[in-house]
């Protein structure tokens, strides 16, 4: 079991190493002549107005929040998708109930969002 994961650990090592090497190459070989306009954040050639880190639309938090919930839904579905032949029709209806409840939740949020604010109507973003 652990043997199957072992190549993945090796691959993690290799890819992290590769990423560092790529980063170092240009850091070592590229020139370094910084000056003030170059280091300033780009804002179409003007002096930046204010700080970039302001509060942003709550829609982004909602996306992350809803993502967690429906990600969990998918995680719960996978074990069933693997074993549904053995588990039989009884669990099919159980999973239907599970999916129906969550889909109702999804439709509720979509309806609410289309009325008030939304992930689908984040205008200022």
């Amino acid at each position, binding site marked *: 079991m*652990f043997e199957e994961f072992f190549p993945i*650990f090796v691959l993690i090592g290799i890819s992290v190493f590769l990423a560092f090497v790529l980063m170092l190459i240009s850091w070592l070989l590229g020139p370094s002549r910084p000056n003030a306009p170059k280091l300033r954040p780009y804002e179409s050639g003007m002096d930046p107005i204010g700080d970039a880190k302001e509060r942003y639309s709550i829609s982004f938090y909602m996306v992350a929040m809803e993502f967690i919930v429906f990600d*969990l839904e998918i*995680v719960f579905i996978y*074990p069933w998708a*693997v074993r549904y032949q053995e588990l039989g029709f009884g669990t099919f209806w*159980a999973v239907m*109930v599970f999916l129906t409840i969550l889909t109702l939740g999804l439709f*509720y949020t979509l309806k609410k969002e289309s009325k*008030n604010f939304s992930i689908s109507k984040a205008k200022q973003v």
Partner: protein
Amino acid sequence: METFFFVFISTLAIGTALAMVISKNTVNSALFMVLHMLSVAGFYTLLNAQFLAVIQILVYAGAIMVLFLFVIMLLNLDEDEKVVSKIDFKQLISFTLALVVLAQLLYITGNYAGVLPELTGEPIAAVGTVEAIGDELFTTFLLPFEVTAILLTAAVVGAMLLAQKTSNVIDE
């Protein structure tokens, strides 16, 4: 080889956990926590609990920490705010109390050391696969599974309502 990996991952896990607590920049803390989650997933692979290992990455590192990071990044927290500005009396007391709790916890765990089953990869290998989890989840734990659906829906609807309330306040 497995022992080497255990030591490596443990060091990583403890190191990142400490770094998370110590680092002053909250975004750095969150990123260290992501690394910590990943090393915990490494432990699960060592224990042959493969389903848990990937779920640990998928749900904790890939979903929950993203929300944390969003919140931290966009709430515009002041980076210069010191965690410990100056040691005052209150902090001294809380530190002592924390030590007491830690001692108690260690003492209790010590008492139960003999009772705990010897954990090795073999017994977990039988229950750690997706197949085994599927069989258990959809027979023995069917009711909790359904209740989870209601819980998750409640979470979505609740978040929705909270967000909505704020937006109404802004509108008015």
